[in-house]
């Protein structure tokens, strides 16, 4: 009767098994340091231009929008505070994660998916290598290191974007903007802003690997796996940011 529940439950179980193995491999060898470095380059350095662009414009736009709202209360001087809090707590981590999900969860899923359908994964196992150790764990480690760093970069260029509007359009001085932005941030905000990308990194890399390794049915299957990975990773980013925000708001 409840047969329709079987596939999703089985998928969740498989995802947990994959995550468990990927995490366990952190503590046992062999470690493929070269693969980690290559993945850090693809995921981190490769995402940098788009993260810079999106980070800058999100700060730019928030400041423009907020300056109008704040003008009603005669509080345009507080714009630095608003940009800092929204970027560091929420938009920086989420926008960066969504970019990386779109760029790298899809990349991981299509790469592993192609390897799966051309029997390279089987070949790897037949030649004595654990594909999870060789493919999944390096991608997970690389994303967990690079995503928080990318988020910090996005937050910073976002603040610069806000500064450009605050200085040229609103007419604040440099120190008014930066002092206001700096003083608005508490340790709680920073902790939240760094915890989020770290958790997102697990989700993005593991979801990408999960759908990639489950690929069946040739090239069409690879396309399908890629799409599913991006959608699932993006949805989970929103679910998790809501949960973490909820916890931190209560803590405060």
């Amino acid at each position, binding site marked *: 009767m409840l047969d329709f529940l079987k596939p999703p439950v089985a998928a969740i179980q498989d995802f947990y098994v994959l995550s468990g193995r990927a995490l366990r491999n952190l503590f046992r060898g062999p470690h493929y340091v070269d693969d980690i470095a290559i993945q850090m380059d693809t995921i981190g350095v490769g995402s940098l231009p788009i993260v810079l662009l999106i980070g800058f414009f999100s700060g730019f736009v928030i400041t423009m929008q907020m300056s109008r709202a704040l003008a009603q209360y005669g509080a345009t001087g507080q714009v630095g505070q608003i940009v800092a809090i929204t970027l560091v707590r929420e938009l920086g981590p989420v926008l960066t994660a969504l970019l990386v999900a779109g760029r790298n969860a899809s990349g991981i899923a299509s790469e592993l998916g192609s*390897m799966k359908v*051309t*029997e*390279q994964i*089987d*070949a*790897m*196992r*037949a*030649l*004595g*290598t*654990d594909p999870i150790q060789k493919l999944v764990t390096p991608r997970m480690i690389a994303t967990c290191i690079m995503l928080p760093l990318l988020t910090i970069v996005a937050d910073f260029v976002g603040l610069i974007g806000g500064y450009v509007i605050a200085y040229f359009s609103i007419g604040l001085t440099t120190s008014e903007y930066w002092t206001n932005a700096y003083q608005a941030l508490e340790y709680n905000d920073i902790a939240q802003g760094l915890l989020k990308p770290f958790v997102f990194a697990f989700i993005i890399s593991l979801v990408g690997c999960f759908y990639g390794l489950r690929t069946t049915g040739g090239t069409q299957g690879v396309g399908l796996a890629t799409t599913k990975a991006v959608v699932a990773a993006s949805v989970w980013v929103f679910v998790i940011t809501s949960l973490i925000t909820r916890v931190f708001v209560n803590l405060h």
Partner: protein
Amino acid sequence: MRFDEIVALDSVSFELGASETRVVLGAAGSGKTTLLKAAIGLIRPDSGKIYLLGQEITGLKEAQLFHIRSGVGVLFQEGGLFDSVTVEENVAYPLLNRTKHPDTLDEAETKVRAALRFVELEQTLEQYPSELSGGMRRRVGIARAVVSEPPLVLYDSPTAGLDPITANLIMALIAKERDSRETANLIVTQRYQDGQLMANFRYNRNSGHLEPASTNGAGGENGSNPTRTIFMVMKDGRVVFEGTQHELEASQDDYVQKFVPKHT
């Protein structure tokens, strides 16, 4: 063995002795590839037992399997080469990544060159698999399968999708491999000619050519089957025929007859 509700392999039982050749024929979807993957533990059966190189592998964990599998060479359909690394790194992979006693880079390089010379592709060392033709990829796959000199080699449809001339070249390499190192072979194929070549020709180390098996005298003690080649025909996951080439050609079964060309 079953996938969801579909039974892929049903009561399949056989034994492959040292330096024997077994040719598995069957239509697409008859369970040939599944059989081959189950034999090295890539797929686990729901019931029954599998012994690999004298050791039961049915209950082993993946990590324990790695060592046993290093005694088996596998050629996957389409070669299964890693397309992100060069031919040289592909062929060196089994040597550098085996769990016990991995080779040093120098040792591996010598063996890789020897293996690629064996398949006559020494000039492709620095190339990537995507730059090679289908037949060349298959040959690199053979080099990777045999580079660690395993006593057992499995071939999954080595000639699928190749033109007859290239296909014969590949089969000649497989026969050469078998006869220069006396390996056991499991060959899964849809082409009867592949099996016929394995059953009737031997590689002569002195002349460097394939010769009809009966003329070089090695067949004496084995009677009419000098290359010790057994044919097996599969249908819907079951073995419907098992025997020598002579028995295969004499079979009256309609399905079995489909694999034996009438005019040979």
